[in-house]
């Protein structure tokens, strides 16, 4: 199967990969890699999205806050994401903090951008209904604007989760001794392509699981939407 263009050292047959996975599991390394990477994704994603929701709500709502913050955020967004890594290492040291910070940065921007777009896109006519009932700005935010922009927020969260997985691998390339990203670089150094594939396959599976979970949440929360995506299949 892998005969031909690649020799087995570059593209190992699936059986070899499975064997490598089993031996990694027996030694308890696969479990700990998965656990540590998942934890980093979870923490970074949570921190990044919470910041994005707070900041996005503020800038989406108050024009003055937008004018103050938007140029800075726009500028930060144009920084290539990998370029953050050395800076974060310098600032935060080489333990958990910079890795989680990098994941948080990765998750932050998709959530922020989508939420702000969602808030700005809320139907003015619905806000007018709330104004007839003399609701305060805060009540309008909570009862009209946030539910109305929930679809965009959830889109942002899904993209943010994808980014979080991407960034965790990058974060673990640097100064890490554990995790699936470390396994990738480590197996490159030791030319264990089979282990590399184990890490890749596990990452793909975990990314897929995350996305599926968020899709279910989305379907649940947005069942009120009258769109093609919400038609019973």
């Amino acid at each position: 199967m892998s005969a031909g263009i690649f020799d087995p050292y570059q593209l190992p047959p699936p059986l070899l990969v499975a064997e490598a996975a089993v031996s990694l599991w027996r030694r308890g390394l696969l479990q700990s890699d998965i656990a540590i990477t998942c934890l980093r994704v979870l923490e970074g994603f949570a921190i990044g999205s919470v910041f994005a929701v707070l900041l996005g709500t503020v800038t989406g709502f108050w024009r003055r806050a937008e004018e103050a913050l938007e140029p800075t955020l726009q500028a930060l967004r144009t920084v290539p994401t990998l370029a953050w890594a050395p800076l974060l290492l310098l600032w935060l040291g080489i333990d958990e903090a910079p890795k989680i910070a990098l994941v948080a940065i990765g998750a932050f921007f998709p959530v922020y951008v989508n939420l702000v777009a969602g808030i700005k896109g809320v139907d003015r006519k619905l806000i007018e209904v709330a104004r007839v009932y003399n609701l305060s700005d805060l009540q309008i935010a909570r009862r009209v604007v946030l539910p109305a922009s929930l679809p965009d927020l959830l889109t942002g969260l899904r993209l943010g989760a994808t980014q979080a997985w991407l960034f965790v691998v990058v974060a673990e390339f640097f100064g890490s001794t554990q995790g699936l990203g470390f396994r990738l670089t480590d197996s490159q150094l030791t030319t264990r392509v089979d282990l590399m594939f184990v890490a890749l396959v596990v990452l793909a599976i975990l990314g897929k699981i995350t996305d599926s979970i968020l899709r279910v949440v989305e379907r649940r929360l947005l069942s009120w939407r009258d769109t093609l995506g919400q038609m019973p299949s």
Partner: protein
Amino acid sequence: MSRPLAVSAVRKRFGDVPVIGGVDIGVPAGEILALVGPSGCGKSTLLRLIAGLDTHYAGEISVDGSVICGPDPRVGLVFQEPRLFPWLTLAQNVAFGLHDPDGAEARRLVADALAVMGLASFAHALPKHVSGGMAQRAALARALVTEPQVLLLDEPFSSLDAFTRMKLQDHLLAAWQRYRPTLVLVTHDLDEAVYLADRVVLLSERPSRVQDVLRVAPARPRDRRDPSLLGLRVALLEALHLERGAVGAAS
């Protein structure tokens, strides 16, 4: 018992364009007043002023003797579109303007309002699952449930088919019997105006003034084929044409 609406010497301009040129209307408690006039003469604008959504105007608007200076629980507003919140059920939509939307008292009031509008069995339906006419009935229920003294309706039935429109007009009358608000109804449908209203106020071209006031005599329930209603309709039509002719001659 008297809780009238008084619009006195109201003038409104958008930038350099005068839209409302001095309008005086007094509406006795519980009256149904229809407001008709050429497109763009400021009918919707006037309703927004009465609802307190726009407070930049000259003149005075008061309800029950006190001046309106912002959104006011005594004034309700129904728009041309239902404007239901798509993520809320009809019952939750109707409860939207109540102080404690989840309370037991709210539940009772909402059930009442939905029943008056013939929507009792759709309380838990989402807006996407009901027809346009039902959505507009829910919007009416939402406006009525807070029991405003004055209910403003801006072409509430104009996007519905003729049959649904007639049905909703009767729903509106039933609700009016139950809640007895003072109704101000903006409409382009002269049949609707003479069928529903006690008085029809005709506004002139922009900047608008009250051009004519017609009293609709027949007692309710009215027959849509009542010849006196048809006669009024013709009179209104002529008044509107007269207005257009006058503009044509002036320009």
